């Protein structure tokens, strides 16, 4: 099998090459060749370059979700309201007691749900993002990280809407929240980083093992009841001990405590959880970068 490329053609070509942008190079197991630092530099460059793409994808998902339903934004409110109402009813009828709280139970529940919904909406959206865009992934080379990040940003909607709802509810009960309410975006930041990290790795795995998407939906509901969000930390027992190791417990409880009471005993836990979230994010980002083309092979 011959390639009839003249030597003269190649010389001319190399002259032209000098005015060209740097070259792209594909070979087996492409990403780890240059070492870990170069890899992170690549990742940063890619994310920086795809900012506009991320924005477009985010806008597209947003418009698509809310354009054709009357309920639209209100849909974001329904699940939390239903969960809170259920717990209030259970509490009232004595089936399920949450014990003494320094604040009306609905406020306690709804602020917890604000942060929980942020986490679960973002995680579910991110983990399904690659599968949903499967047709595109197989045919076009675009930044898959941008796709997952844009989907994870769907978490910002519940955060905004439910924060406002919770605030209004506070006023209804005559309970004034503290100034920490202004810092909600910053308080939610570690939570967002954690969900982004988990979302990346789950999106990847879901592309290859479709069950993961389904299992996750089930697991999230489970987790809501097993994590002390709709009820305070139990005095003792297995659940208490597990919860103290659960980063979600701190990441959700500290903001809630600060907003409602202005102080919280969970600072250490929160800081450790934030560090863990950051580490998880970096690891998952690296893993995603190394393996993203495998998804295109099998999605």
């Amino acid at each position, binding site marked *: *099998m*011959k*390639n*009839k*490329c003249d030597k003269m*053609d190649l010389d*001319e*070509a190399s002259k*032209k*090459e000098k005015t*060209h*942008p*740097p*070259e*792209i*190079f*594909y*070979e*087996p*197991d*492409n*990403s*780890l060749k240059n070492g870990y630092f170069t890899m992170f530099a690549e990742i940063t460059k890619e994310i920086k370059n795809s900012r*506009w*793409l991320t924005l*477009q*994808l985010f*806008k*597209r998902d947003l*418009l*698509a979700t809310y*354009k*054709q339903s009357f309920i639209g934004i209100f849909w974001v409110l329904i699940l939390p309201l239903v969960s809170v109402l259920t717990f209030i009813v259970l509490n009232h009828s004595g089936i399920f007691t949450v014990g003494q709280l320094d604040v009306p139970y609905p406020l306690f529940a709804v602020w917890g749900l604000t942060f929980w919904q942020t986490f679960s909406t973002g995680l579910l959206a991110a983990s399904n993002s690659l599968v949903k*865009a499967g*047709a*595109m*992934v*197989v*045919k*076009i*080379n*675009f930044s898959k990280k941008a796709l997952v990040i844009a989907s994870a940003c769907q978490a910002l909607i519940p955060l905004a809407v439910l924060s406002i709802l919770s605030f209004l509810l506070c006023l209804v009960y005559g309970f004034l929240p503290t100034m920490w309410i202004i810092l909600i975006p910053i308080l939610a930041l570690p939570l967002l980083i954690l969900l982004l990290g988990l979302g990346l790795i789950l999106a*990847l*795995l879901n592309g*290859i*093992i479709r069950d993961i998407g389904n299992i996750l939906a089930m697991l999230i509901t489970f987790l809501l009841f097993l994590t002390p969000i709709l009820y305070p930390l139990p005095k003792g027992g297995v659940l208490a001990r597990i919860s103290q190791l659960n980063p979600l417990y701190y990441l959700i409880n500290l903001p809630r405590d600060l907003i409602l009471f202005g102080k919280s005993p969970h600072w250490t836990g929160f800081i450790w959880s934030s560090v863990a979230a950051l580490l998880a994010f970096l690891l998952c980002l690296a*893993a995603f970068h*190394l*393996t993203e*083309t*495998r998804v*295109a*092979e*099998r999605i």
Partner: protein
Amino acid sequence: MLYGIQDISRNILGLGSRPGRLRPGEFWALDNASFNVLRGETLGIIGPNGSGKTTLLKILNGIFWPDKGQVRIQGKIGALIEVGAGFHPLLTGRENIYVNAAILGMTKKEVKSQFDAIVAFADIGDFLDAPVKHYSSGMYVRLGFAVAAHCRPDIFLVDEVLAVGDEGFQRKCFDKIGELKKNDCTTIIISHNMHTISSFSDHVLLLDKGQAEYFHSPQDGIRGYNHLFSQQSNTEIDKNCSGNDSIQFVHVETSAKKLNPGDSFTFRLSYEAQSSFPDVEIDTAISNGSDSRLYFQATNRAFGRRIDINQGTGILEITFKDIPLCQSWSKIILAIWSQKRTELLFWWRVPVEFRGQAHASGRNLLDIDYRQEK
């Protein structure tokens, strides 16, 4: 699925994924495909279905990495593989242009500057502000192509997407590709249309079951492509029916199996008939090698000729005159039916090879007159 997990784990841990080996159930979609394309050239990639053309394009596009060998690309790649990527049915055309352009790799500045050109090219009028789900398939494709065509890539990858769309659209596509060629854009086209390949390509890559052969001349490449199909076809005569209880075609002579373009082909049938068949229907057809469509088909009714087969012996001679086919394997088909197609009397399919003509890439060669006047 298991292999997917294996590959991912090995990649994450920094181990090579042992790409050179085939695991059970795997096969080489592409093997030994090597070629160079210089700036400004157009490469046509041709091959039977399943030969690895789209896989090759995906590797060039960076969708997955090769498991053996390497790819070096200089320049920005634009692909016309999936028209309307990222289009959401609920968004308007205008909104979708931005999404599609972003996905194809254009920057915000580029889209802003090219927006009017894209809208003009797509030519969908007021529908631009209507949700895309209301578009006809033609409008959808036009909009998608409009965005992809204005990517201003250095290297343009085109898959058989040009088969979609009406004539006006196809002409627009080819005009645009021609314009890109003039601007020194490197193009790689996959097509089954040999005429497209021969008019646009500078060189040709022929793929068959993953193996590639590079041809400096498109004509040689196309000849190789046709040859692949000729090898696959049957060179035996299908003698499906040579008579029934009332008539036997005892001796059948046919012309040579290798013809030049413009030659005639004759069936000479000697028959013995126990009963007479008035006004028989003689069905004549020619099929082209690699297509299942018929190049020609007509019965004697079309020519206004009535043929009666009388009891006894006789000879029937049927000639296909001046057949303008070239460079292909064809089947010449003759079938004879009784008057109202109630009985089949004869049916043969004879494979015939028409020799090629230099600089002709199509299969049908008409005689064209060229005249100049002062």
